[in-house]
């Protein structure tokens, strides 16, 4: 019964496989799509209510479930997961209410050193690059790489660019960058190979706040251009390159 429900909503049924003595992987599909991402959001939310779950890591087409081995053995965890999947109302997957996050960005040469190169590569002028990047609504498919780093997709096809051949050793905090079909904001100073277009003055993570991270998997994200004056007034800095 539950399998029928799952397969009615998905092209392939959700596969549950044991990864280790402490973790299971739910595979929703082999193809990235908004419909799959909606289902993953729905299941992630439902599993938060299940006692004995230690960690949930949603990604593009999968959900990794880390469980407490004192609560579940290999049979009990699969049974519990099947039970939760069976209880889900899949029809609500499409009309989920996602949080919309708006991130102000100063797209300028001081903070966006790759803006010119990207424009050249895409055969556009820099204003058009900024317009395309900031008029698209993205979806946070996965969080990872570093705490709070959200993989946002998809960028318009005209903006598809490869990663830099040599990654930078230090990408300044708040840098807004693109690579292939994705865009992201760097929440902390890390090495990085994406093409940097600008910078946001707002913090992506704040472990002292209740919300912790600005972007969660499943959220909708937009970028809003700001002037250099607004960027500086909101505490932005131009250092780093």
């Amino acid at each position, binding site marked *: 019964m539950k399998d029928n429900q799952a397969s009615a909503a998905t092209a392939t049924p959700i596969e549950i496989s044991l990864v280790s003595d402490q973790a299971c992987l739910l595979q929703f599909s082999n193809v990235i799509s908004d419909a799959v991402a909606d289902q993953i959001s729905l299941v*992630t939310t439902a599993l938060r209510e299940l006692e004995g779950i230690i960690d949930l890591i949603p990604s593009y087409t999968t959900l990794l479930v880390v469980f407490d081995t004192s609560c579940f053995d290999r049979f009990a965890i699969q049974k519990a997961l099947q039970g939760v999947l069976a209880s889900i109302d899949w029809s609500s997957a499409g009309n989920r209410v996602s949080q919309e996050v708006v991130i102000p960005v100063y797209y300028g040469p001081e903070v966006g050193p790759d803006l010119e190169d990207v424009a050249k590569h895409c055969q556009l002028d820099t204003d058009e690059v900024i317009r395309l990047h900031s008029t698209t609504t993205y979806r946070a498919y996965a969080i990872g790489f570093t705490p709070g780093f959200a993989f946002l997709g998809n960028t318009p096809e005209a903006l598809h660019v490869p990663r830099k051949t040599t990654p930078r050793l230090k990408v300044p905090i708040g840098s807004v960058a693109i690579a292939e079909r994705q865009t992201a904001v760097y929440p902390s100073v890390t090495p990085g190979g994406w093409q940097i277009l600008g910078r946001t003055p707002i913090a992506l993570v704040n472990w002292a706040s209740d919300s912790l991270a600005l972007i969660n998997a499943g959220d909708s994200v937009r970028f809003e251009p700001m002037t250099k004056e607004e960027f500086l007034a909101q505490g932005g800095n131009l250092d780093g390159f």
Partner: protein
Amino acid sequence: MAFKVLKPGMLTLLQDLGRHGYQHLGVTSGGPMDEVAFRWGNALLDNPDNAPQLEITFGMLSLEATQPTSIAIAGADLGATINGEAVMPWQTYEVKAGDVLNFQQPKFGLRAYLAVKGGFLATPVLGSVATVTRESLGGFDGKGSKVQKGDLLPFHATSNHTPRHLPRLAIPNYEQAEIDVVTGYQYARFSGLDRARFFNSDYTLSQNCDRMGYRLEGQAVGQDQPGIISEGIAYGAIQIPSDGNPIVLLRDRQTIGGYPKIGCVTSISGGFLSQKKPGDKIGFRFMTIDQAERERHLTLARIHQWR
């Protein structure tokens, strides 16, 4: 009510059982590289399971007690001494104000655990004191700093000491070179030849071995496999990058990644692997998931019953 750090050692970190429930935000779990040794450390002192301890990697650490306490040493034998007198791991010891505790160099294993009665005192960040330097989280300062010279490592002083030691049979043998692996959902991507090579070859630990993961060298398997769509990474996952040299992902691993995985080191075996050093040789041994589960339950039950 503290240890004063005379020499900080190669890498000395405050750890508890880890930072759980935040991996969906990209925050790694941290926690003790050798979970079983850590659990024994707290059991020896009748501490709560999660009481914070020092994880001492390699040694070269020197601490002076400013107040009396009772300590337990578990895990590697790093040639520890109290006031110059040799002390063995897997036991409790009484420490008085002014006593100097040294950890020199590895004799067996790589990482020792130092527990104090009641646990070291620190404010948790995101529910845990586990130090993850890369993420600037946890530790005595809450900012992910490792232990440094001059630091005061606080605990509640006590003169109550109960001598206890592990039964000899319960002491793990860190010389064991076989690491248990359960094969997972991506095993089918690897050819019969690659699987045979993986389980029948010796691998050497490279210089690139740290709390994030152990990069191995030896018989390459499954080179140039296409990547997979990035997905959550479980503790112990064995990634195969394009050069075919396996990487075992451990406590401070990234939360998601896109390399194919041939299997997963079991939660118990991961502790044994973590006691190995660059240059050491290991081999992988196939284990079914029910054996892995049974081994974990038996190991944890043994600790609880002994308490």
